[in-house]
């Protein structure tokens, strides 16, 4: 075919220029692909972080309004019968229902929900009945905190008690596809089942099990109750997922809300699945209307609360990366256009001759566009290669990113002393280490092809515009 022969020969003649243009486009497109891959990697990391917090299939999370932390020296809630820990002239004292006794050498153990307020199961049912809600399940995010009071605590130079803490998640065994346990993979034993609703059985996070040398069949103590470990799960992220999962009914029975109130028929989190992704905003609005005091969070709103290097990297990829790519692309397109115009200028006599032979302008334009498009597509292919290389380099050398989400799990422990109070709130934020993995997506490759075609067409169109305006007599006169 004459078109191909002519195109091939012309590109071979302008090999160096074609390579230069192609490399320029490859650089720009490669940068776009790399940035897109990095951005996709960051998004996936964010998604994994959110998934580990939310659980697979959860679109909306509702948390009860956070109760006010007890102030130092404040009395326990009426009827709560809670314990307070005080340091006075007589040393450390543990007080309950107005009666105090020496705390030295004693262990205080609490399973509390202090960051999230209670939500009744009737409200969970009401949420489940909403029009655009597919499923809703309640959960209890609790924290087991135990402190052994040293004998000489409170005396000058005496030791400070170190709290021992782990997180406990009450799981609705009739809705196991929702909530944090749903995103875990069972690596040993089994998960919870509906038959476990009232049993003292537990599933452990693999990290917790490893650090405490526990396995399926072991026993764990939660505020004095023994639970048999039936399985070990691994969560997709190496962050801080709940460490112990127990049936919701058991968590309600042994856990306490703020002020040491019982949690019978109460949860502090509702995990909701919308009928479709498009319904999520509607579901969010419906729940806000139904439970105005509680906090309704979607994946999108939670993502905006993520801070740390993951958030910084996302901003870097989205803002700096995008603009850098655009600038390089503009430069590459401009250089390609200028070089193509220069090449056309050098071929004026050739095009004038072809016009004299009876070639229509459109035919000559097609020839030049074909040449530019070929260079663009070859540049695009090289750009995709560079993009893959860039993504591989990022994956290989990028350090783990940290994601920090404020007050997501809602556990806390308050210690009150006679003097200035001290508040232990060890898990008021979640920090998750996320591996940065840049992967080139099909969309990025499609974008690269589109950019290559656009770059080629843009470069060719400037030259073509000149050819279309070229009068054959003028073209021939220039060399006559």
């Amino acid at each position, binding site marked *: 075919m*004459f078109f191909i*022969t*002519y195109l091939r*020969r*012309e590109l*071979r*003649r302008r090999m160096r220029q074609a390579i230069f243009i192609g490399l320029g486009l490859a650089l720009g497109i490669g940068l776009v692909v790399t940035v897109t891959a990095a951005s996709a990697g960051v998004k996936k990391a964010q998604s994994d972080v959110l998934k580990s917090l939310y659980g697979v299939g959860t679109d909306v999370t509702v948390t009860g309004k956070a109760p006010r932390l007890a102030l130092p020296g404040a009395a326990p809630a009426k009827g709560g019968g809670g314990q307070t820990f005080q340091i006075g002239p007589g040393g450390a004292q543990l007080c309950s229902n107005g009666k105090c006794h020496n705390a030295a050498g004693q262990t205080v153990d609490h399973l509390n929900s202090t960051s999230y307020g209670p939500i009744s199961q009737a409200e969970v049912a009401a949420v489940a009945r909403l029009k655009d809600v597919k499923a809703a399940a309640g959960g209890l995010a609790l924290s087991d905190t135990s402190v052994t009071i040293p004998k000489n605590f409170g005396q000058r130079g005496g030791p400070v008690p170190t709290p021992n803490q782990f997180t406990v998640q009450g799981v609705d065994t009739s809705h196991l596809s929702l909530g944090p346990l749903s995103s875990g993979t069972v690596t040993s034993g089994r998960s919870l089942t509906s038959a476990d609703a009232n049993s003292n059985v537990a599933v452990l996070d693999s990290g917790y099990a490893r650090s405490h040398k526990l396995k399926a069949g072991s026993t764990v103590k939660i505020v004095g109750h023994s639970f048999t470990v039936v399985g070990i799960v691994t969560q997709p992220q190496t962050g801080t997922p709940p460490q112990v999962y127990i049936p919701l009914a058991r968590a309600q029975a042994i856990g306490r809300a703020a002020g040491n109130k019982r949690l019978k028929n109460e949860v502090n989190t509702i995990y909701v699945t919308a009928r479709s992704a498009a319904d999520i905003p509607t579901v969010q609005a419906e729940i806000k209307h139904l439970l105005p005091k509680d906090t309704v969070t979607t994946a999108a709103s939670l993502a905006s609360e993520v801070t740390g290097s993951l958030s910084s990297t996302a901003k870097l990829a989205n803002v700096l990366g995008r603009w850098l790519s655009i600038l390089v692309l503009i430069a590459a397109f401009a250089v390609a256009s200028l070089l193509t115009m220069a090449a056309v200028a050098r071929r004026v*006599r*050739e095009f*004038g*001759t*072809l*016009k*004299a*032979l*009876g*070639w*229509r302008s459109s*035919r000559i334009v097609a020839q030049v566009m074909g040449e530019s498009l070929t260079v663009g597509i070859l540049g695009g292919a090289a750009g995709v290669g560079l993009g893959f290389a860039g993504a591989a380099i990022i994956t290989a050398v990028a350090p783990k990113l940290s994601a920090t989400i404020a007050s997501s799990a809602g556990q806390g422990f308050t210690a009150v002393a006679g003097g200035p109070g001290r508040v232990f709130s060890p898990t008021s934020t979640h920090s998750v280490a996320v591996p940065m993995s840049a992967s080139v997506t099909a969309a990025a490759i499609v974008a690269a092809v589109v950019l290559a075609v656009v770059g080629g067409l843009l470069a060719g169109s400037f030259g073509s515009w000149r050819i279309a305006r070229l*009068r*054959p*007599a003028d073209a*021939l*006169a220039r*060399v*006559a």
Partner: protein
Amino acid sequence: MYQLTDVTKLYAKGRHTVPAVRNLTLQIEDGQWLAVQGRTGHGKSTLLNLLGGLDRPTSGTIEFDGKNLGQLREDQVTRLRAKSIGFIFQTFNLVPTLSAAENVEAALIPLRVGAAERHRRVAAALDSVALGDRSRHLPGEMSGGQQQRVAIARALVKEPTVLLADEPTGNLDEDTRDEIIGLLEKLWRERGLTLVLVTHDSAIAQRAQRVGVMSKGQLSLRDDARQPADSMPD
């Protein structure tokens, strides 16, 4: 074939308008060989461009086979050029990246001739200029005379009725000049072409049927024109 009536072509040069051709009236018969002489810048090439439809007159009419070139659309003039008018240039104007055969083939592309027929006609055209064995050579691999013969093959491969040659021997040595003019004369005679040849060379002009001299945009025809039979060899 051609009827030019009161043709004027003006060019803008800065603030001034320069007449390249002035009030030219000329008739060129089918199969006639007209040689145009004249000093550089006196309108010879402009006349050739007007005859080839590469440029349009500022005023006056140019009729080609009864069609007014000035009133045809650009695509119609392009089609006419593709089909009926062959060009030969002083600098050969071959596409440097294409072989001799491909350069000749380029003239058949606008006519949408099938590939097999194209190749047959290209081979025949190169044979007619005695370059059948150089079909794969690039222009840079050939002498000036050979390049001009490729250009002649390119002009004639589409079997035009008119051949417009702008100083075809201007870049050639004397022997090659004679060879090329001999070839053109032979083809003109064999094919009954209408040949308009611009030349500075009086020896070449003397071989034409009619000779005109362009001076300041005006053409003066000499009356010593030969008939085609005059130039036939004995």
